[in-house]
């Protein structure tokens, strides 16, 4: 695997029943870049994203190879829990657990058996800073996570994902439940994060893809139509379907 590639999909198909929702997708995600998956609802973009860290286990049949550090993680033998710690996920809606801000952030870390207070404290600060939430919550880390606003909760969930030090962060429409100001903040956070992480984001918001991503993949009816640098996709789409979607002819 080339050095600048964080993840490679080879011929990945996903089926919930007999009919596949995602068909034979092959693509490479570059390290320290933000890649966006766009497409109409039902195009298979979320399904594909969820298959990457095996969230579709038990729900759908995923075939093909998902290569991470030259290891095909789409095999039964692979420890899914470790995969999910390396490839974290942020969901459509903020999902804080009903406990304190501090406890939320270190939740994943506790799984690895980390007990040292200093390490935990340090990781909390680091993760919250990374997620651009530290200044707003540093004085009330013991407060309930449910007392935060929607945008803050989502950044807390990002911090919680960061705390386990994943290499890749999957974001499934992370701003769809947020107001414009919070959305802008999350996008700014993403720009900061790509220095240390590889981000793959699913979005239904074309402006978001054009603003925030380096690479954009357009999916249509389960097929990957076009995958290229974002400027190229938006300025000069090669495929008619991409052009139609970007011009609002469907979607």
């Amino acid at each position: 695997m080339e050095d600048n590639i964080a993840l490679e999909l080879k011929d990945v198909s996903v089926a919930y029943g007999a009919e596949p929702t995602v068909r034979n997708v092959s693509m490479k995600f570059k390290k320290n870049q933000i890649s966006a998956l766009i497409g109409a609802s039902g195009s298979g973009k979320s399904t594909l994203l969820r298959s990457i860290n095996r969230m579709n286990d038990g729900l759908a049949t995923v075939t093909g190879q998902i290569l991470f550090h030259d290891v095909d993680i789409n095999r039964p033998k692979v420890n899914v829990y470790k995969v999910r710690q390396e490839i974290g996920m942020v969901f459509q809606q903020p999902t804080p657990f009903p406990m304190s801000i501090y406890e939320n952030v270190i939740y994943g870390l506790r799984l690895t058996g980390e007990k040292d207070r200093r390490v935990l404290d340090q990781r909390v600060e680091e993760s919250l800073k990374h997620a651009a939430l530290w200044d707003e919550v540093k004085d009330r880390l013991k407060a309930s996570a449910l007392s935060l606003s929607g945008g803050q909760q989502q950044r807390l969930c990002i911090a919680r994902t960061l705390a386990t030090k994943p290499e890749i962060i999957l974001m499934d429409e992370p701003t769809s439940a947020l107001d414009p100001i919070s959305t802008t903040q999350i996008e700014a956070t993403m720009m900061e994060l790509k220095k240390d992480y590889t981000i793959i984001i699913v979005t239904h918001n074309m402006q978001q893809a054009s603003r925030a991503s380096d690479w954009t993949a357009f999916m249509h009816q389960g097929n990957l139509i076009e995958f290229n640098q974002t400027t190229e996709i938006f300025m000069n789409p090669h495929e008619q379907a991409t052009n139609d979607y970007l011009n609002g002819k469907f979607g």
Partner: protein
Amino acid sequence: MSDWEKRLTGPSKETNQERVGRVLTTLSITVIGLLVATILIFLASKGLSLFIKYGVNIWDFVSGTDWSPKKGSYGALPMIVTSFGVTMLAGIVALPLALMVALAVTEILPPAFRKVTQPVIELLVGIPSVVYGFVGLTVIIPILRQWFGGTGFGMLAATVVLFLMIVPTMVSMTIDTLLAVPESYRMASKGLGATRWQTIYRTILPSAAGGVLTAMIFGMARAFGEALAVQMVIGNASIMPTSLMSSAATLTSVLTTGIGNTVMGTAANDALWSLALVLLVMSLIFNLAMRLVNRNKEG
């Protein structure tokens, strides 16, 4: 094998956790599954041994009218008839009355009234059946004795006790069914100029019919399986009932009194198990009926 291969395929605390969870929960469900299987097998084998081991004819058991196990006579018809008799009577009387109470609560009385009725109904549903039996002994039977003469013990007393016992449950279930009818139906009906009564019997009742029927079957199933409350007031005479005021015995009441009076492993004891088997089969039929009604409601 690369480091990453090792790192991503090796076991971790979480794989262990998962195994623990799977084992514990599978164990729980297996215990329950085995329990049910054991109960069914036990009841079936014990219940059938009267016919297999002692060669009693099934038809004689079901249609015979003389129940004297000590003399080798196993006619269970009187109990079967009595069980069905009291259950049917209680259910049929309770259905319209429970429906009217439920209609009054959901459709006629102001909604604030429900805040009072709900806890009261919940309490009545929770009152143990022996308490209803005690009420039957101390209140119902003296009244029946005064009105109709005789001892007061018998099918009528049992019916009244069962009625009292199942009415709260049926009211509660019927209220739930009526509340589940979408408010838009009522609005639409009223908007067309229908009176409250027209709305009730043209719109609400048809769409709630399945639920009301389920409530009745549920109540009857409870009545059919009730033992002590009935045994306390029915007079416990295993003979064909001749009138509502004559002493009788149900499947459950014979079981209750018989187990203490027979020796395990004898034909007389096995005959009781046959009664229990009849009881089980009937309970399953009630359950099946409820499922059928529910399926039709959904379909």
